[in-house]
């Protein structure tokens, strides 16, 4: 990081504004409580002690969309729930990210029928898709780390 090598002993680090902001966003992303079905169990177990999500800065899951910036859609979304999902997504402040967890949220899964939305990207724009039925905690963590990689590539020029 720049002249960090020479100034490191003085406790000074130099970096770009972009990298610093993206680093801050990555390390303190708060997910929103949006477990719908069986994938929610895996999300809970990822949050719990063995596969800890707190070490990624996701100490707890916020119930309110206004205080969260990551929505992990875990589970099947029915046609009746779709407007609710959209309303909660709209209530989240920018910058917001969506992880579609599991097969049912990504593509409708095994439910190809009238009741289930065939992929939650019909309703909200998705950043990362995590496959699995349900995905193991390691797979969800890999999805979260992929999202971190994506956030790190974001540029200031795109915000304005």
């Amino acid at each position, binding site marked *: 990081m720049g002249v960090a090598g020479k100034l490191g002993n003085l406790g000074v680090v130099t970096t770009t504004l972009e990298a610093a902001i993206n680093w801050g966003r990555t390390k303190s992303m708060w997910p929103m409580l949006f477990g719908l079905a069986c994938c929610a169990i895996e999300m809970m177990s990822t949050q719990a002690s063995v596969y800890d999500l707190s070490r990624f800065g996701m100490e707890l899951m916020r119930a309110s969309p206004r205080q969260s910036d990551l929505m992990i859609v875990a589970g099947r979304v029915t*046609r*009746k729930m779709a*407007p609710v999902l*959209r309303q909660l997504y709209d209530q989240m402040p920018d910058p917001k990210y969506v992880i579609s967890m599991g097969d049912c949220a990504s*593509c*409708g899964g095994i439910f*190809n*029928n*009238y*009741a*289930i939305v*065939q*992929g939650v*990207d*019909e*309703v*909200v*724009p998705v950043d990362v898709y995590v496959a699995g039925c349900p995905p193991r905690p390691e797979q969800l963590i890999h999805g979260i780390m992929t999202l971190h990689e994506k956030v790190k590539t974001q540029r200031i020029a795109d915000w304005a």
Partner: protein
Amino acid sequence: MQTPLDPVDLAKLSLKDAVLDVVEFRGETTIVVDPQRIVEVCQFFRDTEGLEYIFLSDITAVDYFPKEPRFALCYHLYSMLYTRRLRIKVYLPSDDPRLPSVTSVWPSADWEEREAYDMMGIHFEGHPSLRRILMPADWEGHPQRKDYPLGYEQVQFSFNFDDIDRLKPYAKD
């Protein structure tokens, strides 16, 4: 507490022409009833001493397409006092299936009849608010009917990936 009485005998005695048929299968009794007199029949089973089926377990609907009469409604009754069950069945025609609602007898029939309306299209006269309960309010069609299509969308393999991708509704932010 009175001794339990036989529902079939009492029904044939009091509700003479409302009872169309009685079926007994492996310990389960089913009484087939005229649909327009369903409220009177249900009140009889709920209020008579010795029967007292005060709990409506469920109302289920059956579609016998293409046989006539097409629809059947099963009222599953349970007597908590005598711990025994009874099924009351009504047959409905395929064009305009209507019958009176039993919400005045058991209030829990409210949502169960809404589900039968939503999934099968059976109209209940006298229902406090008959609207869809499982599907969105503006949905067209009754999903659990036999002539409703089974799947929803065409499966996307690699050879038709782009064709289907063009037609899929993606959310634009």
